[in-house]
């Protein structure tokens, strides 16, 4: 079941990126899609530390580049959400293998017991985050407010300040 969810998110993310890049003429589209596909597969087979994160950053960057050209925004947003879910699921799976949250316990004789209830809760949280993200995107897509640039900058600064305060409070 775990693998099924991981593979689904992987397939959705790759398909969305392919949908955004393959209609592009020339060799760049297939190259980008096959490169990302290979990297995602590498993360699946051997979850090297940091490779999954590099992959997510790359995916987001590629999606951002294509979005700047106003190409398939909905597809790319869905794909990025799926890539984020894949990144989270693959990291969770990797931790179930190796145990420690940050690898600080490496080197000791270890055995980790996975908890099905925790996996369900985790999956539920991933679903909730993805759903909430897509809902926000949908609302943003539908409700287009023509705001002046200064207001947008102000809102972004408020967002940054709020995020900073929230992270300091919780983290």
């Amino acid at each position, binding site marked *: 079941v775990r693998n099924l969810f991981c593979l689904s998110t992987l397939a959705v993310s790759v398909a969305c990126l392919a949908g955004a890049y393959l209609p592009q003429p020339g060799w760049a589209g297939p190259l980008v899609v096959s490169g990302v596909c290979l990297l995602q597969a590498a993360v699946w087979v051997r979850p090297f530390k940091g490779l999954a994160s590099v992959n997510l950053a790359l995916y987001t960057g590629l999606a951002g580049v294509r979005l700047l050209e106003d190409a398939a925004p909905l597809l790319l947003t869905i794909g990025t959400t799926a890539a984020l879910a894949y990144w989270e699921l693959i990291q969770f799976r990797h931790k179930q293998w190796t145990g420690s949250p940050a690898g600080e316990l490496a080197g000791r004789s*270890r055995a980790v017991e996975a908890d099905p209830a925790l996996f369900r809760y985790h999956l539920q949280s991933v679903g909730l985050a993805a759903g909430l993200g897509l809902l926000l995107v949908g609302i943003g897509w539908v409700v287009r407010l023509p705001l002046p640039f200064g207001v947008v900058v102000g809102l972004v600064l408020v967002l940054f300040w709020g995020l900073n305060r929230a992270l300091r409070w919780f983290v």
Partner: protein
Amino acid sequence: MSTKSLFIVLILYSLVLSALLSRSGNLLLLSLPFLAYLAVGVLRSPGPIRVSARRAVNVSGPDGAAEIHVQVILSNQGEAIPAVFLSEPVPPGTRLASGVVEKRVGLPAGEAVELDYTLRSNRGSYTWEAVHVCASDPFELVTREWDIPAQAEARVAPSRVRLRHIPLRPRSTHLSTGSLPARRSGSGTEFWGVREYHPGDSLRRLNARLRARHPGRLFTNEFEREEIVTVGLILDGRALADVAGREIPLFEHAVRAAASLAEAFLREGNRVGLLVCGESLIRLTPGYGKAQLHSILCALARVRTGAGASLESLKYLPVRLFPSHSQLIMISPLAPGDLPVYTRLRAEGYPVLLLSPDPVAYATAYAVASAVPPIGKDRVSALAVRAARLERRLQLRQLARLGVQVVDWPVDRPLDERLRAALMGITARMGR
């Protein structure tokens, strides 16, 4: 902030700044899934945490190769914790036989999680101070780590061999019936001498041959009294006296010998004390019985060789630890320069028995086993071994001249056999 949350925040900031610079609303929308992910993680992070830990340790199996069963129970008395990572250190010198030492679970309010594992261990003393717990949200964006006190200790005593009666002939004994000859007549089993019959002597002890030779006179057989003795076991735990390399280091053989000797002497009712000059100086005043054996085994469980250890402390042996004329048994492989220590002990009137595990034979056997270099074919190594043997033999001879009873013990031979062979020989020579 965890690396994960930092990474997501960085992506979020990059997207928002890129959206601002490019004035792209689509790019701003792309940041929303990351914001939602962060929000879910932060909102699902654990609240105030109130957990307690309990640890139970149980040692089973034979001494020297025991199994330590450890059970850790973590109870949650506060709110539910979405994800708990529970980890236990595996003490050095032990290996995991079964069970798990790390667990990642969700911990609902009022419930408990149990960690159950078994370690296999040789001799040693193992302590646990705390349980390492890491509580977090399901994404591990907000993590809190701490150690919950849950102390426990497990000791695995050294393995022992059952020794037969050790034929010592101590100079001084206690006036309590025991098993060692007291060098005076009394009730015993060994023949001591003959004297004139006194009224009240048992007729069973009349010497028939002398009565026949001397008509009209009666003679009584006397037997050597058997009493208990105070034995001081001194274990040499200097790192320089140890030879490692095999599966069982030489020091381990010495520890096992000390445990076996303590058990043998205590079984026969003697008082036994212990002094270990190792990583730390361990002293146990002489005592009797099973309680003393337990104390000695516990002390031997935790002894380790020490680089800074020295036999210098033997110069000032407290009388309370080893009373004057008590039988000292040194268990030491013997190092160059040890002679003055033995000289001083003998000068103070202690009868000393040296049980010396042979480091040269041990090291040679190891070299032969590993075949690097092949002893006998390599001329230099063969000469080195010969020189070491000669030096050791010379040292042992010097000690014997001092009046130290020497038992040279190649550790691949049974201790019981070596002790009896050496002590019987010494007794026979003393008799002559």
